[in-house]
């Protein structure tokens, strides 16, 4: 296991190098930040001067070399928009993104696990149909619409929660529900189908024939194997939530990484885009590694070389 982890970590290096090259090229071919930084009244001479001041007049290869050398020291450049070092700007967004992603995930798990199991155990009953129906609706509701509806109902009319912004626990509830409901719906469907497949297997019949209670059969024998696909979707979704919750972040004015990344792409703020993609890539790679480790804990038969 330790060898596997070390090997996985070493494999990150070429992956990150490749990502750095792709991102570097993409942010430079998609636009010129100088146009966005100067006032409408700026002259051509002003543009030339600012381009030189930002180092954007150098050949691309030279710019990449400088970028790589600096990046190795943790310096991803200065944000054009904020005028500050980009990596700290990205890192300071992580707590907000983690907080929202974790809350949404926890909510999704708490909803999906019991509903998914119940749906599988009570297969083809009214309860199953009800859970499946609600899941489809939950998955189909766009985050944008749902966020606005939640605000209107729970903040404007009922006054239970604050409308937006990041503050105490009550600020977290509406955005977490907005994100978590869709995820819960998806996971409920996954757990249901996974459990159905397992419940029809021979070893479950054996367990039942031994006289074990249904609770032990479902809870211990079936659910554990049913968890493997759930863990996969959980970790994949969690890492994508870190950088990709823009719509929910925008609706709730939640200052997360997704909002920073999209604003920076719009502003052609190269330094932040580069730093953010790097940080997200590292989180995704580490997330995948964590998935593998959890697989191993759940199913000792899974071996890594």
């Amino acid at each position, binding site marked *: 296991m330790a060898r596997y982890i070390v090997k996985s970590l070493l494999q990150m290096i070429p992956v990150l190098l490749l990502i750095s090259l792709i991102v570097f090229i993409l942010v430079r071919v998609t636009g010129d930040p100088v146009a966005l930084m100067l006032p409408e009244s700026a002259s051509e001479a002003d543009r030339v001067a600012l381009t030189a001041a930002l180092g954007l007049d150098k050949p691309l290869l030279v710019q990449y070399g400088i970028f790589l050398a600096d990046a190795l020291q943790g310096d991803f450049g200065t944000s054009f928009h904020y005028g500050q070092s980009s990596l700290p700007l990205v890192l300071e967004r992580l707590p907000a993104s983690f907080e929202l992603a974790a809350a949404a995930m926890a909510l999704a798990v708490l909803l999906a696990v019991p509903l998914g199991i119940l749906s599988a155990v009570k297969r083809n009953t009214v309860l199953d149909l009800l859970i499946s129906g609600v899941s489809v609706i939950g998955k189909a509701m766009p985050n944008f619409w749902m966020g606005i509806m939640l605000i209107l109902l729970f903040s404007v009319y009922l006054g239970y929660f604050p409308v937006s912004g990041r503050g105490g626990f009550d600020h977290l509830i509406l955005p977490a529900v907005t994100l978590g409901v869709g995820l819960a719906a998806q996971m409920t469907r996954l757990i249901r189908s996974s459990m159905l497949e397992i419940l029809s297997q021979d070893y479950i019949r054996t367990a039942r024939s031994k006289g074990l209670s249904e609770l032990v059969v479902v809870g211990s024998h079936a659910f554990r194997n049913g968890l493997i696909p759930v863990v996969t979707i959980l970790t994949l979704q969690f890492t994508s939530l870190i950088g990709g919750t823009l719509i929910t972040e925008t*609706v709730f*004015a939640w200052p997360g990484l997704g909002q920073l990344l999209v604003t920076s792409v719009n502003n052609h703020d190269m330094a932040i885009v580069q730093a953010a993609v790097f940080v997200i890539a590292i989180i995704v790679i580490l997330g995948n590694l964590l998935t593998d480790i959890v697989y191993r804990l759940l199913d000792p038969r899974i071996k890594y070389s």
Partner: protein
Amino acid sequence: MKHNRLVKGSVLLLALLLVLAGCGNAANDTNNEGNTNSNANANAGQNDGAAQEGQERVLTIANPADIQSFDFHNNNTTVSESVLVNMYDYLIQRGADMELEPNLATSWERVDDTTWAFELRDDVTFHNGDPFTAADVKYTLERIATDEALKQHSLYNNIEEVTIIDDTHVEIHTINPDPILLNRLSRMGAGMLPSKYIEENGIDAFLAAPVGTGPYKYGSWAKDDRVELVKNDDYFGGEPQWDKVVFRAIPETSTRVSELLTGGVDIIANVPSTDIPRIDLSEGTSIVSSPIQRVLQVILRHTEGSPTADPKVREALDLAIDKQGIVDSIAGGAGTVTRTSVTPGNFGADPSLYEQTLYDADRAKQLMEEAGYSADNPAVVSLSAQSQYKEYAEVVAAMLTDAYFEVNLEILESSAFSEKLSSRTFGDLFMIGIGNSLFDASNNYNRFTVERNTGETDYDNSRVEELLQDALQNMDEASRTEQYQEVQQIFAEERPAVYLFQMEGIYGKRDAVNFDPRIDEMFYAEEITSAE
């Protein structure tokens, strides 16, 4: 044994998620201690929105975006300036009526065409206790004049040097005569910075704990969330009225409106016309508006080969657009039609062209026929617009289609639009809202000088070029006004641009505050008072 592994596997994940969520909250609670204005109001379901937080008097304003930086010279948005004017001061400031008034400078005079003398207040201190002196003026203005990487640099690079006479007297020397130096000194790039503090600690330390001379001091900044400013008890203008001023960044319009309705904020900016009735009809909230310095316009290419190179086509285009109809329908009545972009209050304005508009759809068709076009043979033109003006562009395109134009509409995101603007690669027409923070006609017309418009409109009139070039350095106000007024009359005839209307800033406010919006879109917290 099996059970243990199961428990480990499942609990590990859940625990991880809950701990992450918990950690985030704990950390955030610490960071935002005391920052519970909207929270408290919303929880209590109160709609007083107001200034009371316990005994604290708090004013909360929601903008659609955040500031860019606390480096006043390295911002380029109106939103940034509207926040930072509460923390930093200019030598000269625009009052609520937009007249220039003494601020850090008590008096000034022009010594010669390139030299201006200023006398400074002697009772001003920065928030860190350093006295404000002539050295700070020299540092500030020479920094913005020489540092090409600063976003405001291009508007200040005519400043050559600042000479310190003594602690309260300076002379500003310009490279060329600059008739609008005072206008430059009363806007974003000229916010006075503390020279000693920055020179001793570096700009990064300054940005981590910025200080100015304004009525409010830096409190905290959670980027893309909120800026909190706190009262500066030592403000030279007397004790500020608010204990705390919070500027929230809420990009989504419906969320901003909901925050206002629930009392989470006191004032919101950029209310779309569709939300006006909702705010006006709700108890405790209302709409206030003011004309702003932005004029929505369509700029026309005069390049040979373009249909709009023909004066008849340009006139037809102008006559085909029902500007008042656009104001009444899309803008919800919030706008004033105009045939000039130099609106009242700006130096060089020609009042005879303001509140004037041309619209005659039949005559437009007739002109197009004279130019050789018809319903079967329309003039094919492209019209590019920023996504924020999408509805306006669509309506203009529809009106032009009725007058024998075939319009290829191109709606662009702001960054793509800015790039095309910068590279001068628009087609025949582009729609743009141009502001004017300098309050001077030069800001409207510099883009039409030959150097600037070659490749963009290719408009070429030697008389206009002569007038514009001369007015740039003309220190005589009367003749300079005449020069710009003549340019406006020529423009109304030759139409390098067709002006739609002067836009309005529409704000929602709670009844608990008195707020009169300003033409320059600034939020001076000292001008916003509690109604309770």
